[in-house]
């Protein structure tokens, strides 16, 4: 049996190769000392303001990577970016002296990691006493128990800032509702497209789809990570160009997206 390229994968391989080449180029540029700047995201800037507000009000900051923050499957990239934002927010809280509460996801597989990030931030900021294990909250492994527990915590402690960015289901909107009732600032978003409208309605600073990856890169503070995002922007521009050109070609009758057409070679 001879080894060949799988049938119908040529277009995908071409696209992936271009995407990898662009991302690698920007990674290489960053490693050569030419990092690409990312523009400011208002949602990320608002985190610092929200933490200041929490210090003034004496109420805690709730921050999490989402109720679906799993380390495997399609939610893993969302979780990783959510963790970068969690680290950034935690650091600001520890620096400025705000109390932090971290709702852990349903599936507790990421809980040791969340706990580790929180502890590391406290130690690295020279305030190991700021770490309190009980501030990492676990509400059970079902959606309903999760939002019941989260709402109960928000109602009992109050909330000045809610930062919920990562892999979110509809459960997040309930904690956002409780936080909004308490006058909190809500910064939230997920790449899960079915939940975009929820956060458009419920967040003061919503993050949509790939905004989460941009926010994660900004919060990581790593120029290499930020530069690779710029490569991704070029990939998206190419995708838009391809979509327009191929749509025009399909309209004139060329076999672009038909069965066995150019895109499915």
């Amino acid at each position: 049996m001879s080894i060949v390229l799988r049938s119908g994968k040529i277009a995908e391989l071409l696209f992936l190769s271009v995407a990898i080449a662009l991302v690698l180029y920007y990674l290489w540029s960053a490693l050569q000392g030419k990092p690409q700047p990312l523009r400011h995201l208002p949602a990320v800037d608002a985190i610092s303001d929200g933490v200041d507000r929490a210090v003034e009000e004496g109420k805690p900051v709730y921050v999490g990577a989402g109720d679906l923050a799993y380390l495997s499957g399609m939610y893993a990239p969302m979780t990783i970016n959510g963790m970068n934002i969690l680290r950034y927010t935690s650091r600001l809280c520890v620096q400025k002296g705000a109390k932090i509460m971290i709702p852990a996801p349903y599936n507790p597989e990421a809980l040791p990691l969340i706990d580790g990030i929180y502890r590391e931030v406290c130690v690295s900021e020279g305030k190991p006493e700021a770490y309190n294990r009980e501030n990492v909250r676990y509400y059970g492994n079902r959606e309903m128990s999760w939002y019941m527990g989260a709402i109960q915590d928000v109602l009992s402690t109050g909330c000045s800032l809610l930062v919920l960015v990562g892999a979110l289901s509809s459960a997040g909107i309930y904690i956002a509702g409780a936080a909004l009732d308490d006058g909190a600032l809500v910064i939230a978003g997920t790449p899960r497209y079915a939940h975009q409208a929820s956060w458009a309605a419920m967040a003061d600073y919503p993050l949509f789809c790939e905004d989460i990856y941009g926010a994660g890169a900004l919060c990581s503070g790593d120029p290499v990570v930020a530069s690779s995002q710029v490569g991704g922007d070029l990939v998206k521009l190419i995708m838009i160009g391809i979509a327009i050109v191929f749509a025009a070609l399909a309209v004139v009758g060329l076999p672009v997206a038909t069965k066995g057409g150019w895109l499915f070679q």
Partner: protein
Amino acid sequence: MEVSQASEEPSLASKITSKRFYQRSIPLFIVSVLVGLYIADYFIGYEGKTVGPLTPLTSELNTWGTIISLFILLFSNIILLAMHFRTVARERVRRKEIFRSVSFMVSAVFFAILAFASGPKLTSGPLYTLVWTAVYGTMGLGIAIGHHTFFTWHAMRRLRGVTSADGIALLVSTVLSLFLYTTAVTPIFPQFDAIANWIKGIPNTAAQRSALAAAAVGGIILGVRALVGREPGLIEREM
């Protein structure tokens, strides 16, 4: 000066035994190799077959991935129990925290006993399923309905403050979509059906697909960083 520089250089043994090496460098290397393997398996196959030369390897890796995930889950659950046990064992703890921790541990023990009492099927056994459905199913349904009302109320309150163009577009789309599912409005004004279905089918589908594509690009970027070992990782960055 040279002497002090040489003494600051860590030895090979200390590099290998450092937390940074075994908690970051080794896992990143493993991830990098695995990403390469899975990409290769996706594109390379035997002629006329659905499997490829790497398929047995990726299949085996998937099994090991599941096994390791289960260990991580077990580890996480042990940490959870330990956290609650420590809370109860500490002297100065608020009553509320003790109540929470005791409830957690009692529930864990109760459901563990229930699973073993349900026969060889454990959590799929009839007794466990009955109690779980009666306790969680009934309560969960009531909670879910209550919270849907809660969310709808909040969403409507938030829409009061809509002033931007995209907010107004969202509000109009929401109202039209709501009309689509109402038995009172659509029969009287059948044109809502066409308008709302057009919104669902054309701009909504286009936005969903572009959102999915943009999110996929984010995944590719992460994969490329992992492939070349430049993903910074999540732990051991601070110390």
